């Protein structure tokens, strides 16, 4: 049978073009205009790195640097914690055999992916208020760990599914205790998945605005909330420069996460 060739469908090219333009044109505009020499955000005044210099040395730079530092600390800590929890969860889901409520557990782990973010944001705010936590780095961190878990879980679980449990059985057959079998065999084999999961959690945390904005409290800013705050007072090209920098960081991390995940896959099939 002849294979269905999607490219021959009428309108395929037009629809594809439309999607690509709608998705990426704004990003392209922001990236290009971040190199604008003019202070206008709509008219091109020649190429320049002035706004990048402004980001690091300009009048608003201390505010953004503090926010960036907060974002970084939160993203690293949230990424690590979420990865640890997700790794434990993956081990339990894929090595503990069948247990009551396994499907429910799987659903609970992944629920944050399905729940509208604003609902999580409001719920987190109400929860923190109810138990008397005042907003700050701590509340942001807790909220971030929570919603990062499913993002860390997915690549870790995928990796773990590709590691047959005969490896650990072989290890235990060769006198390794269950802990040694985990530490010496399963953990190294899962490492690409764990690293990929960490990178994903890190970037999700770094980019989050909505939940952060709800739970952060007064005076504490992360980079996205700081950008939002600045935009409310009018969009200046330095915002575009910061956004472009964040975009670059995100692209690098997501690509790394994908490459690491893929290298693990390639090894498996060899």
């Amino acid at each position, binding site marked *: 049978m002849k294979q269905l060739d999607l490219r021959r469908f009428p309108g395929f090219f037009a629809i594809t073009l439309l999607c690509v333009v709608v998705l990426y044109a704004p990003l392209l505009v922001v990236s290009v205009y971040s190199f604008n020499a003019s202070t206008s955000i709509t008219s091109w005044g020649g190429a320049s790195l002035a706004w990048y210099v402004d980001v690091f040395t300009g009048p608003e730079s201390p505010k953004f640097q503090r926010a960036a530092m907060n974002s970084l600390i939160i993203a690293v800590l949230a990424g690590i914690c979420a990865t640890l929890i997700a790794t434990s969860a993956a081990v339990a889901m894929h090595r503990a055999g069948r247990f009551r409520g396994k499907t429910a557990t799987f659903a609970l782990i992944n629920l944050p992916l399905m729940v509208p973010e604003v609902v999580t944001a409001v719920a987190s705010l109400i929860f923190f208020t109810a138990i008397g936590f005042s907003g700050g780095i701590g509340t942001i961190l807790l909220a971030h760990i929570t919603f990062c878990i499913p993002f860390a879980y997915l690549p870790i679980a995928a990796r773990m599914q590709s590691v047959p449990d005969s490896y650990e*059985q*072989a290890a235990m057959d060769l006198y390794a205790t269950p802990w040694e079998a985990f530490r010496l065999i399963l953990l190294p084999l899962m490492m690409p998945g764990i690293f990929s999961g960490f990178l994903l959690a890190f970037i999700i945390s770094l980019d989050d605005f909505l939940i952060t904005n709800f739970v952060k409290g007064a005076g504490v800013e992360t980079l996205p909330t700081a950008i939002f705050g600045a935009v409310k007072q009018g969009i200046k090209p330095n915002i575009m420069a910061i956004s472009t920098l964040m975009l670059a960081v995100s692209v690098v991390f997501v690509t790394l996460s994908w490459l690491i995940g893929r290298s693990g896959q390639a090894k498996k099939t060899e």
Partner: protein
Amino acid sequence: MTGTVINIDRVVKRFGTFTALHEVSLDIAENEFFTLLGPSGCGKTTLLRCIAGFEPVSGGQIRLHGEDIAPLPPFKRPVNTVFQHYALFPHMTVLENVMFGLQRLGWSVVDAEGRAKQALELVHLSQFLKRRPGQLSGGQQQRVALARALAPEPKVLLLDEPLSALDLKLRQAVRMELKQIQRETGIAFVFVTHDQEEALTMSDRIAVMSDGHVQQIGAPREIYEAPVNRFVADFIGETNLIEVPVLGIADGMAEVSLPGGRALRCPTPLNRAVGQGVLSLRPERIDLCPASEADLTVIATDQVYLGTDIQLKAQLAGGQEMTVRLQNAQATRLPERGAEVGLKLEAGAARLLSA
């Protein structure tokens, strides 16, 4: 007779409502190449996993030199396993793989390395110490798995269909080598396979299993020539199974009435007279003969050329199919299709089993 290394005593294994092993009992002697043979789903791998400790038994005892090891976890049992797909650790080199067990036992790196190299020498793989398993061929991986399991000098080596992933030529070469390594090391091997040829060529003794029961335990020759029941006769080698009326049984010999009316005396494991039995006739112990001397008369239906042998397909008067194997040298006097042929049963051809 050397001592018993493993004593399996009425071992039961249930998975939910399914019983995989029904009170299986058998002894494995020191220095023995023992094979668990049976079709898939017969419980042979389950029994092996019970010995290794991957499956807890539901009942019975597994004694190693008299001590019940059934309650011990796998890492406390002095037995090692060669897995079906080898399960070599992909992130370690060949040498590290073989050293793994020794190091868990507390050997120093120097000692473990020395012993591991010896084990790799035994399987002729000394030149690949620094390679990763992924860089080796299937046959080489199989040798690494063997070296890894032998290095800690287990009391018993368990092998879970280790040859099934190899191609035919390699499989035949490895058989002899495995047997030789078993003799050299003096370690008892428990070998699981569904391949009867593998079992017959390598084993000192074979346990034929089906449906979670041990059907027969014995030397290859015993299993082939003196099967105790219909399942064993049919599973090991080729056979013709023909229902016959039994005239009498005494002292391990039976007298039966062959189709066509001739009486035949043949050995039997049965000791009580039964009205009807199943006669197992090995195709290679049947020969052609003139009709006047024939034990059985058949109509030739087809012939299959097998190289060394020719397989003659035939039909009894009742319509039942029969197979006869003739050496190729006798090919000159092969009957035409549709011709009436006399068959002579040679000594050892027939054995009466319960229906």
